[in-house]
C-alpha cells in the first residue's frame, strides 16, 4: 500500500538494481518528470495516474506499508517522490512502483535475497529455447530458471494465435489472388476470342493456344513478382530502420510498445515469388483450357 498526505492506494512495489535494470528494462525511458533511480535510499518512482490519485509532486513524501517476507510483520518506510513514469497502459501506470533494491530488501526483510533475476540474451531466440544449458544450470531446489515464453504463456499463446491468423489470412490472400488471376486471364481471353478464333482457323493447335495463355500467365507472374519484390524490399527496408508505430498495449503485465520493425529475409524473396508464380500458372490452366476449346466459326462471328 502506498500513501501520500492526501490519499492511499494499493500498489505493486518492485525493488530494482538501478544500474543493472537499465540493461534489461525500459523504466528510465518512461520517466516523464524527475529522474530515474540513482541509488539514493529514499528514491521512489510512480506512474502518472498514481501521482494524480495521490496528489503528489516531485519531492513530496510517500509512505509504503508492507508485510515483511519472513514474519509478515507490518512495516512502513518513508520515500520522496523522485520520478514519475508513463508506460502507456493505465493498469501499469496506476499500479507499479519502483524503489532501489537495497531499500526494498531492508523494508521487506529480505536480507540480501532476490526473488527474480532477469537475463537478457544477445540473441533473443535463446530466451525462447527451453533446452538452453543455462536454464538447467541455474535451476535447483531453491531456484527456477525459465525462458520468457514459459514465464508468460499467455504471450506465447497470443503469438501462436498470431501465427495461425497470419497463415489463414495468407491462405485467403492467395485464394483471392488466384481468383484475380483467373478473372484477369478470362477477361484477357474474352477480349481476344476473335484473335484466338483466327489463330485456330489458320492452324494454331489447341496445345499452342494453351502454351500461349500459360506463357502470358508466367509473364504476368514474373512482372508482378518483380514489382512486388521491389515495393516489398523498399518498404521492408524503410520500416526495418524506422519501424511501424504500433501504439502501446500491455499483455500479462508486459508492455508492448514502440515501433514494430520489419525483418527482411532471403526466403521471403525466394519462396513467396515461387509460390505466386506456381499459383498463377495453376490458376491459368482453366482459362488456357477454355481458350484452347474456342470454336473458330463461333469466334469469327465476332468479326461480322
Amino acid at each position, binding site marked *: 500500500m502506498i500513501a501520500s498526505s492526501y490519499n492511499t492506494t494499493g500498489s505493486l512495489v518492485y525493488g530494482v538494481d538501478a544500474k543493472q535494470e537499465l540493461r534489461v528494462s525500459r523504466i528510465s525511458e518512461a520517466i516523464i518528470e524527475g529522474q530515474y533511480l540513482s541509488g539514493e535510499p529514499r528514491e521512489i518512482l510512480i506512474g502518472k495516474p498514481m501521482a494524480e490519485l495521490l496528489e503528489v509532486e516531485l519531492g513530496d513524501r510517500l509512505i509504503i506499508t508492507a508485510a515483511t517476507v519472513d514474519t509478515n510483520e507490518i512495516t512502513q518506510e518513508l520515500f520522496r517522490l523522485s520520478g514519475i513514469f508513463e508506460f502507456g497502459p493505465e493498469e501499469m501506470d496506476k499500479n507499479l512502483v519502483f524503489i532501489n533494491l537495497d531499500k526494498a530488501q531492508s523494508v521487506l526483510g529480505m536480507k540480501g535475497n532476490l526473488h527474480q533475476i532477469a537475463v537478457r540474451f544477445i540473441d533473443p531466440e535463446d530466451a525462447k529455447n527451453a533446452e538452453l544449458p543455462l536454464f538447467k544450470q541455474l535451476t535447483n531446489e531453491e531456484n527456477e530458471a525459465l525462458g520468457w515464453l514459459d514465464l508468460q504463456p499467455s504471450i506465447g499463446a497470443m503469438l501462436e494465435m498470431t501465427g495461425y491468423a497470419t497463415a489463414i489470412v495468407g491462405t485467403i490472400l492467395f485464394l483471392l489472388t488466384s481468383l484475380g488471376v483467373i478473372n484477369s486471364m478470362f477477361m484477357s481471353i474474352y477480349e481476344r476470342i476473335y484473335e484466338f478464333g483466327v489463330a485456330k482457323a489458320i*492452324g494454331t*493447335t489447341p496445345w499452342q493456344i494453351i502454351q500461349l495463355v500459360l506463357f502470358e500467365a508466367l509473364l504476368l507472374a514474373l512482372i508482378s513478382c518483380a514489382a512486388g519484390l521491389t515495393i516489398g524490399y523498399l518498404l521492408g527496408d524503410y520500416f526495418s530502420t524506422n519501424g511501424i508505430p504500433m501504439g502501446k498495449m500491455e499483455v500479462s503485465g508486459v508492455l508492448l510498445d514502440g515501433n514494430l520493425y520489419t525483418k527482411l529475409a532471403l526466403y521471403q524473396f525466394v519462396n513467396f515469388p515461387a509460390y505466386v508464380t506456381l499459383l498463377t500458372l495453376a490458376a491459368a490452366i482453366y482459362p488456357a483450357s477454355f481458350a*484452347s476449346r474456342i470454336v473458330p466459326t463461333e469466334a469469327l462471328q465476332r468479326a461480322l
Partner: protein
Amino acid sequence: MTNLIETRDLCRTFGSEETKVTALDHVSINIEQGEFTAIIGPSGSGKTTLLHLIGGLDEPNSGSVTLSGSNIADMSGNQLSDFRRDHIGFIFQAYNLIPVLSAEENIEYIMLLQGISAAERKKRVKEMLELVELDGLGDRRPSHLSGGQQQRVAVARAMASKPDIILADEPTANLDSKTGISLLDVMRDLNQKRKMTFVFSTHDEKIMDRATRLIYLRDGKVERDERK
C-alpha cells in the same frame, strides 16, 4: 486427276428443335486438285457452311469430309489444326486479320507455326507482299489499311504457307471492282502456275467468269454442278 476434297452426305443444322435451320442437306461433292471452283447460290444456301466444313472449322451433324484421302472426323484437335496449317489457306469475307499484328506479321504468323526459318519467312513475306501489290505497307496494322488492302493481306496470308487448297469465302464482297479483278487475277495465276486448288463461295460474276467449275447450292442442296 485425283480427288483432293470429297464430301459425302454432308448435313449441318443450326438451332434447337423449334428454330432448326438446315444449312446443308446431304451434300456430296468431289473437287480435284488444281480446280478453280466457285460455289454459288443465294444467301442462306449453305455456301459458307460448306466451306467451313471442308476446312474443318466446323463439324457436320452427319456425313464426312475427306481431304487428300484423310477423313477429318478421324483427326484430333491438334491433328486438324496441323492439317489446316499445312494444307489449307483461308480467305474470309471479313478478312479476319489479327488486329494487333502488322500486315507482315499476319502473313508471317502461319509460317512461324510451320517452323519455317526466319530468313525464309522474311523472303516469303516480301514475295507475298509484292504479289498482292502491298510492298511498302507491310508494317501497317489492319486498322491502317483499306478494305481492299486488308483482303490482299488475307490472300497473301493464305498463300504464304503454300497450301494445297485455298478456301475463299466471298473474297471480293467488300472490294471495289478494280481491286477485286486484280486479286482474282493473282489467284487465277497461282492456280495455273502452281496448280493450287481454289474453292470460292461467291455471288460475284467476276469469279464465276474465271471459275473452271460452278457448283450451285440452293436450300442446302447441290442444285447443279457444271464444269466449263
